[in-house]
């Protein structure tokens, strides 16, 4: 087991974690501020990828395609919020769960009708080769781009939330909604904006990850669960929690899958290791979630005390 391999997998984990963070950030804000469970968040991620694939085909450029897809998805998200999701804020959680679950079904079928079951989104040709980070460590340059974009967005979000007036309103809303309302914050616009930003983040993640994973109907559901785990670990309403949780989940999951079978193989018979390894790896992050919850039922950094 070489250090090169460990470093490489760690970078993969970081890359995946940062993209998870983009999803989780939007989701945790919606939960925290609007107290609404939005299962359709994964659908926005999927839409971002599909819309990007179309734009990339139209413009012939990866960068342009992605840059166009982000605001487009944000607009879709905001329309969704203003037309339907707004009516759910006042409803109980069960209604929110069921209504957004219905949305998943509807959006999945609509995507199938428009695009078919999958689409192609190849990465930019210029970044198809590896880069030599350290002597002996060659890492795909596209993945480096993802890490770069993820970090840039994280910094941007941090600045937005901590240094701007809007960000302050968002934080106030996340920690005490009634108080924010009482102070006359224009709640409707704020909510729509938060939702739009969340959708934009989803689109970035969806478009960036598309060349690595497949762009297909149902991709949203798989990653949504992970986003939930991230938020539960990190704490609802907390962006810092989302970042810590996401990187933790991303790294543990990636490294777990890569090394657990090998690690088990050192102690157990190969037959046992090859069966138990993948099983344990896929269960790893849920175990961590369970442990965190046992000691901190509200996550590591809950926005509301």
């Amino acid at each position, binding site marked *: 087991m070489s250090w090169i391999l460990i470093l490489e997998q760690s970078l993969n984990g970081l890359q995946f974690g940062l993209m998870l963070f983009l999803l989780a950030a939007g989701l945790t804000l919606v*939960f925290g501020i609007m*107290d609404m*469970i939005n299962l359709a968040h994964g659908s926005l991620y999927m839409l971002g990828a599909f819309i990007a694939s179309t734009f990339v085909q139209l413009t012939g450029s990866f960068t342009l395609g992605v840059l166009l897809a982000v605001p487009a998805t944000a607009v879709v998200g905001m329309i969704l919020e203003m037309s339907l999701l707004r*009516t759910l804020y006042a409803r109980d*959680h*069960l*209604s929110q*769960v*069921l*209504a957004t*679950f*219905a*949305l*998943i*079904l*509807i959006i*999945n*079928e*609509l995507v*199938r*009708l428009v695009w078919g079951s999958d689409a192609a989104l190849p990465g930019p040709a210029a970044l198809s080769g590896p880069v030599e980070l350290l002597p002996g460590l060659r890492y795909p340059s596209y993945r480096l781009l993802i890490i770069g974009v993820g970090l840039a967005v994280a910094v941007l979000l941090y600045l937005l939330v901590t240094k701007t007036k809007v960000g302050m309103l968002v934080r106030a809303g996340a920690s005490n909604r009634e108080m924010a309302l009482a102070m006359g914050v224009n709640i409707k616009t704020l909510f729509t904006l938060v939702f739009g930003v969340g959708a934009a983040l989803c689109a970035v993640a969806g478009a960036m990850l598309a060349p690595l994973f497949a762009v297909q109907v149902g991709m949203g*559901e798989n990653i949504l*669960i992970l986003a*939930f*785990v991230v*938020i*539960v670990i990190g704490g*609802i309403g907390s962006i810092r929690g989302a970042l810590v949780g996401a990187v933790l989940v991303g790294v543990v999951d990636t490294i777990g899958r890569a090394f657990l079978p090998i690690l088990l193989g050192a102690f157990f018979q190969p037959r046992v290791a090859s*069966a138990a390894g*993948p*099983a344990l790896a*896929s*269960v790893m992050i*849920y175990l961590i*979630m*369970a442990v965190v*919850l*046992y000691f901190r*039922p*509200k*996550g590591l950094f809950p926005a509301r005390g």
Partner: protein
Amino acid sequence: MKRSLVVLALLIVYPLAMQAIDHLFYVSFASRLLIYAIAATSLNLVLGYGGMISFGHAAFVGAGAYVASIALAEGVTSAWIGWPAAILASALLAWVIGAISLRTRGVYFIMITLAFAQMMFYLVNSMKAYGGDEGLTLPQRATLGFGLDLANEVVFYYVVLALLVAILYCLHRLVHSRFGRVMVAIRENEARVEAIGLPVYRYQLACFVIAGAAGGLAGALLASHGKYVNPNVLHWVQSGTLMIMVILGGVGHLWGGVIGAVALLTLEHAIADYPVPWLTQLAPNYQQHANLGVGLVLLLIVLFAPQGIAGLLSRKRHARA
């Protein structure tokens, strides 16, 4: 009460009628409906009466299905061993998942139950010994003895029906018992229940385990019915489907799970197997997009008729009186 007896009579007569007109497939289909009715009813206990939005109920149905399947695959064909084992396994799983999840509330609880169920999905998916993601085909249905051959569709149907009736009756007694009152009170005002001296956590956990056990029975029946099991039975979309059934039928109504399961599965079957001419003209492969219809129906129900079909029926009855 009278209505229930009429429905029961119809259900008893049904397979004989189908047999008479030589449509045995519909007996098998009905068995499947009733099995899902059991599953949905078990979810109704925890969701409708207990007020716990558990989005991972498929894990318990799936655990039951897999334990029963593994028993059959390993040659243990007696239902008297396989089915109780399935129930026990699901109950145990519900205990563990419930014990952790019920320490949380609200949004956290929903997401955690979802996550745990998905964890079970991945776990089962990686069990290569029992089919992994391809699933496991079973040599036969379980055996009951006493001259009851479960391979016979009509016999199987009656066994499932008997179990469903038993479960509904148990649910009825449960709701009106001391335990049932406490559960409904918890749903109404959890803090006050604690304040009159009842440990809310323990009651919720008990409810969760009972519901999980019943779900496990449904899973065992499902495995025998199709002689096949695959990890999708644990997927969270399945949990969602069960929830759709419960809300469609009527959350917190005794027959809610049954009505919802029958309605949803019949609807799906009707869309898939009976093309409507003018709709086919409009959209040639609309049948492949049945989920769009399901999604829209669900949305409409949540927005405009959250009490489901049972709710609408009972409103009409009160309005008349």
